[in-house]
């Protein structure tokens, strides 16, 4: 009886500082890398700049997280590579921007409450439009090529071209300026009296982005960890077949996850639109590179990995962007290559690719 009461797979307790440090690096590579990056940056610049860049990096990370979370789940769960994801980001940006322009009266009021009457519909519209397109896209374009990665790459690249061209048709070929709602412009000024970071101006929008990103991360984590749907998703990432054997129609789950992922991409795009205040149909292409780096860095199928990956990408973009702007993109990709050499499955691997 006692023979099979024992548990296997329990790690022995490490002793000594060096051993503990190594264990920390092994068990929590994402935190380790994050702290390492922040520490190195702190050494290379003055504290006030560091605070500014870190907040901006976190803001960018939050928005990229929104865009990337859909793709990592889609790939982790459905084993579908959707290279049209960038087009969904662009579409969300344009949809959100259109609503903001349409409701520009409410958006230009200084009161936050009135602004919300423009912001919430804009974000909501972006969510819905991108989600609907996701639904149509999955049924029409993706479903016939399940299981064939090569064909998936081909048709989603083609689909991306078509969607971006349609954006040109509807909104014209030029870039469109996006009015940021009045209450979200400007910055909080930290009082000079504060030590080290006193006098730093924290942009309001960036703080909001961080808060929103954390909130959605929290919501997604709650859904994945606590709800039945979350259990299904995690099980499906491990084995689609066994989920079907249990009696669940995993195809419906796929569709739901794809739609949710597309909607989130659209939301991220809309947030980005208000951040950059200018959008083009091809913005999705550039952001896709960051998304790809994030999901590979973080580990496919892992929401937590996606979040940490996004934060790392946001930070490195901002840090290197300040220290040596010409190398920002190279540094981001270099980070991905470096992590891949260290951890071929990503920082928090969920599925074995």
């Amino acid at each position, binding site marked *: 009886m006692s023979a099979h009461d024992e548990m296997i797979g329990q790690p022995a307790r490490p002793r000594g500082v060096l051993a503990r440090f190594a264990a920390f690096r092994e068990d929590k590579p994402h935190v380790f890398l994050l702290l390492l990056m922040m520490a190195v940056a702190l050494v290379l610049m003055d504290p006030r700049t560091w605070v500014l860049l870190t907040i901006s990096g976190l803001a960018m990370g939050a928005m990229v997280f929104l865009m990337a979370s859909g793709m990592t789940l889609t790939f982790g769960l459905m084993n579908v590579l959707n290279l049209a994801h960038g087009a969904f980001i662009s579409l969300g940006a344009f949809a959100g921007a259109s609503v903001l322009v349409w409701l520009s009266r409410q958006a230009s009021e200084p009161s936050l409450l009135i602004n919300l009457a423009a912001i919430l519909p804009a974000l909501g519209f972006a969510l819905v439009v991108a989600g609907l397109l996701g639904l149509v896209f999955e049924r029409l374009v993706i479903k016939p090529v399940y299981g064939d990665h*090569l064909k998936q790459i081909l048709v989603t690249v083609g689909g991306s*071209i078509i969607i971006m061209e349609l954006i040109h048709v509807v909104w014209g070929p030029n870039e469109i300026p996006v009015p940021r709602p009045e209450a979200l412009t400007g910055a909080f000024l930290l009082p000079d009296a504060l030590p080290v970071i006193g006098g730093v101006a924290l942009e309001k929008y960036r703080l909001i982005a961080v808060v929103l990103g954390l909130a959605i991360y929290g919501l997604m984590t709650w859904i994945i960890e606590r709800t039945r749907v979350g259990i299904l998703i995690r099980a499906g990432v491990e084995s689609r077949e066994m989920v079907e054997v249990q009696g669940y129609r995993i195809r419906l789950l796929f569709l739901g996850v794809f739609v949710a992922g597309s909607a989130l991409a659209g939301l991220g795009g809309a947030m980005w639109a208000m951040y950059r205040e200018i959008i083009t149909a091809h913005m999705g292409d550039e952001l896709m590179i960051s998304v790809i780096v994030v999901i590979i860095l973080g580990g496919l199928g892992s929401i937590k990995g996606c979040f940490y990956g996004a934060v790392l990408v946001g930070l490195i973009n901002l840090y290197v962007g300040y220290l040596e702007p010409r190398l920002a993109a190279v540094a981001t990709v270099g980070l991905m290559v470096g992590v891949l050499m260290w951890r071929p499955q990503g920082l928090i691997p969920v599925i074995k690719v």
Partner: protein
Amino acid sequence: MLNGMFNRILSGDYPRSRALSVLLVLIGVCLALGPFLFPGVRAFSMLGMICVFIIVVASYDLMLGYTHIVSFAHTMFFGIGAYGVAMSTDAFGSGFGAVFIGIGGAIVMSVLLSLLLGLLSLRVKAIFFALVTLAVAFAFLSLVTQLYNITGGEDGLAVRGPRELGPAFRPFDSKVPGFSVVDFIAGVFTQGSIGQAFNDAVFEVRVNGRHLMYYITFAISLAVFLFLLRMVNSPFGRVLQAIRENEFRAQALGYRTVFYRTAAVIVSAVLATLAGVLFALINRYVNPENTLNFELMVFILLMCVIGGMGTLYGAVVGTAVFLLAQNYLQDLLGLLVSNAEPGSLFAELAGPDRWLLWFGLLFVLSVYFFPSGIVGQLRLWAERRRERKAAPAASPLKQES
């Protein structure tokens, strides 16, 4: 006897379809005699592009069609070749020496980078690889665009090639007559007199260094194509195809698949670099948009797939069809909407600027319904016709193996 000679030249890999053979001969003749069949700068430029991109797409097919390696870094290698020549002639003057220094440097860089990619493919699985190449290519593009002082940034570099390959050089003074087939046919219909149409179709060609450059490109393009044909029909090529069908089985048979895959990537990269060199010399201007752009990468993918993956002949057909379409589809669409209301939905959808929309649609539809591309489809039809001729009676019941 002639058959034997063809067998050796084509390495036993025949077109296997009469329609395809006709098409290939047509393309071949048009390219060989192009400057003397199609007047005008636009046509001449396009001929050169077709020759260059046949190399690009055929080398891409080696990876995609024969080994099922999806890479988005092909434009990166193309750009390395183009910028290599551009930068070295910028730095060392316009002699042939500078050109060869550029070629050498570019090839070294390409080999190193493709080795790195091959190494990465060791660590990550196939589907990661495609994404990783996309990111790496983007990083390279960003680097080139940012290092304005060396690469000219977004403005690019003008390529001052050797004088012998430029418009000022005259190998011989007399003018060579050319005959424009298109103008002749159009003339027959509009003027009714064959003799008159004939006279109108004749034009004069002042042979200069650019024609020399064109024929060098044509020759290299032909040589590369035949080389690739030889390669895919060799034992090496057969291992690649075995890896394509079932990598695990190939490994079980004792092949070190990583080496073969990396070799395919390196060969492909070096050929793309070579194409980039030719591009720089022919086009005389390189910038990030015409060499490293993601859109260009997608075009290469389109040309390879539409022509027919894994056939090599598909590269020839796909390139020709695509570049023709890209050039003249816009004219066609412009004609279509010339009578429509500007700003109307029809004008927006069918306008010449939206040619990519329709092309993208055609591409997606072809992946679903004609996955084997033009060449594959022509071969399929030819095979069916042969089967029908061989067994006109009812088809025999299939035996279970």
